[in-house]
């Protein structure tokens, strides 16, 4: 490099500038770090998400919020509370009583998994956990029905109370099925919609049957 041997920076050209990097606004990564916030904020954010999904279920409009940000907290809470409320009958009758806690739990979760697998095998485009999330959240009307049934049974267990319970359970069963169908049916191929909706109908029918036949000891 002979030609470069005589290149040099003359000393009267000032070299100036700043070396320090300006610390301006927070980088976007800082917003996702939730380690520094109070625990109350974290819990409230999750609770608000769950609550918002409950509202979506009660008024099923075609919104994609339920599908997009799925979580399984709501279904877990609903399943546990429903299974707990279905207890309290069969303490002394060991056989031929109502469903045990584990049976209700297994029926709800196993049933939801089977229905999800069924819809995926039939060519649905929904993801596994999204479908579980929707099916679990749509148990909410039936949990409300269980609560109402227990309150009605406190008042009495005659024919009138049975008819009231029957009407409430049928209404909530219809609501559950319609809500979950509203969320899930769009992701199925159009000529197989009935094949996907029928197992959902059967699933909520079985849960409604368990609620309706609940008899306190």
């Amino acid at each position, binding site marked *: 490099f002979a030609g470069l041997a005589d290149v040099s920076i003359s000393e009267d050209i000032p070299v100036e500038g700043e070396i320090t990097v300006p610390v301006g606004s927070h980088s976007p990564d800082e917003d996702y770090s939730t380690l520094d916030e109070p625990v109350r904020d974290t819990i409230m954010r999750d609770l608000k998400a769950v609550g918002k999904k409950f509202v979506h279920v009660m008024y099923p409009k075609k919104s994609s919020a339920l599908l997009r940000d799925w979580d399984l907290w709501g279904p877990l809470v609903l399943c546990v509370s429903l299974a707990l409320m279905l207890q309290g009958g069969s303490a002394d009758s060991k056989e031929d009583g109502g*469903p045990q806690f584990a049976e209700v739990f297994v029926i709800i979760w196993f049933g939801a998994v089977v229905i999800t697998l069924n819809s995926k095998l039939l060519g649905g485009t929904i993801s596994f956990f999204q479908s579980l999330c929707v099916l679990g959240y749509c148990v909410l009307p039936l949990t409300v029905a269980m609560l109402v049934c227990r309150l009605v049974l406190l008042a009495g267990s005659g024919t009138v109370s049975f008819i009231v319970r029957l009407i409430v359970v049928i209404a909530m069963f219809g609501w559950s099925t319609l809500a979950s169908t509203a969320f899930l049916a769009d992701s199925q191929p159009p000529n197989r919609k009935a094949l996907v909706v029928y197992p959902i109908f059967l699933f909520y029918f079985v849960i409604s049957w*368990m609620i309706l036949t609940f*008899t306190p000891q």
Partner: protein
Amino acid sequence: LITTFLVMYLLAEFDDAANLLAANPDATTISIDEPTEIPKNQHGRLQEPGREEDDELLGTDDSDKTELLAGQKKSAPFWTFEYYQTFFDVDTYQVLDRIKGSVFPVPGRNFVRLYIRSNPDLYGPFWICATLVFAIAVSGNLSNFFIHLGKPTYRYVPEFRKVSIAATTIYAYAWLVPLALWGFLMWRNSKVMNIVSYSFLEIVCVYGYSLFIYIPTAILWIIPQRVVRWVLVMFSLCLSGSVLVMTFWPAVRDDNRRIALATVGTIVLLHALLSVGCLAYFFDAPELDFPAPIIPAHNGTTLITKIQ
């Protein structure tokens, strides 16, 4: 679970055999599926019965294409999700047609050739069995409730245990009996060349769809009359039994006459055992209530005895 894995392994072996046959059409081996017509569009409507009769009379010219198509359909390895998706490749109207075919058996028509046509599905058998389990459990519970309603000592119990018993029985019947039958038919095929032979999934399909008639039967069993219940048993046994007989008679008819009759007889017998067993276990016997003559006791009070 073990049964499922065994079945999947056998299916994988079977698919290899099907692929070998497809590659070697001139080999003198038994055709896996006897075709009735070229399955040109799997999603097309059923043709009229007249045309199908002509197609059945045609020779097995299209066996190569059918086997090739059958081989291509299920070529995914059995540990992938796509493999199982091929068993759910049915539309709503196809499932409804198959259910209709199991309830109204047309004499002379084979359920498998008419409706399944080398597209067996697992949707029908699985969900029909699930519905049947809950139909039997719920109807049994309701029927017992109505039978024992007036009695002062009766407490209503939901009898939830019976659901698991019903589920075990029905799913065992719907999977183990086809497995045994398939094994038996394969064994007989190795001794006697049968023209018609079915794959394991087709047998499961026939059994699953033939159980459909028991769903309305179970609901009607709520009626607490002995005569009505037995008439229902006979009627549903005739319908679904005839579907099974018409399916499996061509598969054993070339065999020894006694073995053929024994096979078909066993199929019908097991089917009858299932329905009678469910009726006996889940539904209490309706009691015959008619008032006996009043017997005056010594102190003047009257006694009414009930005859059971």
